[in-house]
């Protein structure tokens, strides 16, 4: 009896979680221009609008470019850092961990305003470089956390064996450790990419019109007129998220298989 009630409640919550998303995606295929059901017919006109506009397509390229560059930077910095943190002990580790995880905890509005004031005088506002740096800082903790988690399954004895064979610590890391934690690193990179793809507040404050990302352009669209083109953009972002989720799922499956 109690379990049945639990099921009813659980399914209702699942519906609550999914309904908004399933409500918005079909609208983008509407042949009309209203934001409610039933649809007057199906068409791709809003997608034509999306790909034909001066704003949406550049936003897609900006999102992908900034996302890839910042994920690359975050992974490049985050992977060795995670390895270092994994081998560290004591007070210094706690402090370093605090700094590394801070971007996950500090409210993003504070980051956005601080970066606006810091980047302004040095000419990094309204540049792609500024956006990449900011998003890399926000994405790096996710890389560190994911790589640290995959290091849990790695046996440090192998490193000692490598050094006994005469390999230096860097060499040991690259040759012995990295291949084994590669799925974790890749998952971390995907997390960092997803963080950049999702981020809108920093973009609101430090991006110029030439750096507008997809969510930033959507924010502008929501502020102005919610057209069905905005729902088409939303549907594209949903699709991208599903792809990313699938990639992470696949990577985690690989990791488990690799770890035995």
């Amino acid at each position, binding site marked *: 009896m109690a379990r049945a009630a639990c099921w009813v409640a659980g399914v209702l919550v699942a519906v609550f979680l999914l309904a908004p998303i399933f409500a918005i995606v079909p*609208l983008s295929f509407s042949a009309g221009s209203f934001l409610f059901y039933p649809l007057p017919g199906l068409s791709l006109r809003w997608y034509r609008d999306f790909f034909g506009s001066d704003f949406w397509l550049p936003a897609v390229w900006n999102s992908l470019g900034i996302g890839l560059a910042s994920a690359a930077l975050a992974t490049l910095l985050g992977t060795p850092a995670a390895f*270092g*943190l994994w081998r560290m002990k004591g007070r*210094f580790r706690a402090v370093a961990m605090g700094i590394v995880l801070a971007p996950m905890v500090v409210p*993003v509005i504070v980051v956005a305003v601080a*970066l606006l004031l*810091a980047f302004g005088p040095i000419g990094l506002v309204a540049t792609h470089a500024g956006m990449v740096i900011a998003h890399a800082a926000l994405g790096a903790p996710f890389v560190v956390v994911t790589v640290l988690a995959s290091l849990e399954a790695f046996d440090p004895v192998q490193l000692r064996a490598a050094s006994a064979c005469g390999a230096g*610590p860097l060499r040991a890391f690259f040759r012995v450790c990295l291949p084994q934690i590669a799925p974790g690193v890749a998952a971390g990179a995907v997390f960092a990419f997803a963080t950049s793809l999702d981020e809108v507040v920093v973009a609101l404050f430090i991006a110029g019109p030439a750096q507008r990302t997809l969510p930033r352009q959507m924010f502008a669209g929501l502020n102005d007129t919610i057209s069905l083109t905005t729902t088409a953009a939303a549907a594209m972002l949903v699709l991208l998220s599903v792809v990313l989720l699938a990639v992470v799922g696949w990577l985690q499956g690989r990791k488990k298989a690799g770890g035995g």
Partner: protein
Amino acid sequence: MRRASAALLTAPLLLFLLVTFVAPIAAFLWRGVTDTEVAPVLPRTAAALSAWDGRALPDEAAFAALVEDLRAARARDRQAGGGSIARAAARLNADKPGFRGLLPMTARRVEAPFDGAARAVLITISEEWGEVETWGAIARAAGPLSSFHALTALDLRQDAAGAIRAAPEDQSVFRAVLLRSLWISLLVTAACLLLAWPIAWLIATTRGAAGILLLAAVMLPFWISLVVRTAAWMVLLQREGVVNAALAATGIVDAPLPLMMNRFAVVLAMVHILLPFMVLPLVAAFRALDPRLPRAAASLGAPPWRVFLRVTLPLCLPGIGAGCLLVFIQALGFYVTPALLGGPNDQMLAWFVGFYATRSVNWGLAAALSILLLVAVGLCVALYGRLAGFRRLGAA
């Protein structure tokens, strides 16, 4: 050797974050406890007021110093076009409304040389120079350290003599905003806990496809952009949106309901966005729970509510705490969702930080409000550290 190489590997990221994250934030927050706009423009006045007790008008020396400062600043501004008087006036105006006009106007009027006491001339230019608090505002802004912004963020004012009291009714807003932010976050956290419990329990205890489907229902929205989810709620809740159209079609309501631009919409969308952060730690806690323990309690004759209160709940408490704090911390800093779905009195602290930083040149106040926000978040993190230990923050 080993420690050195570990430090070396961590160094690039730490350096990167120190330069691009820690330093900018520290520099920004520093503005909340300092005052640098007025002293460079009115250095002599600030010096003349440094020993002033603030009980009666300052003496002639201060008036003369102000005249001299304004002449020098005006000459500089004319030459370099720096607008320093306007900026000092903006800062003083934040303390005592009226300064935005008063200071540039006075600077224009005292430019030409005059005979007689500066005091008499200034008070003829404007009676405001005959008020103690006008001078108090300059003294408070003389810096370099200042409590002015922090006090403003708490709806407090300091008078010229140093006494601290509540800000006038029509200028107090920030305590209400802080309470509102805490209240909305608390509401969202409670709602998330209530909704997350059954689905987390099912995910943790159901084997096979059903459990995986439920987990997918939580993970999918978790991965979808916050802006997209906020947009979805806008589409649903609009006056001519999905929900109202459905309600009208089924004849439940005659006129469309105002579902957007209010507190309800903000809380609803925030719960939707933050719910996965509650579900996932709860699932972890339920999975770690040894199912034999509640069964043992039940077999010893404890009624179900007693089993729940005495056995299940205490064992899950770390997971509950983790979920609650994760949700609460994130809710406190929300910006986009209230901005798009809320009305003017549903905006939270973050909105005011953004407002004072980009729509009103008041970075001191923006920084002080940020400090307030960070203190609230910091307390939560510390509490979390106490409850669960820091190691799990990463895992969640």
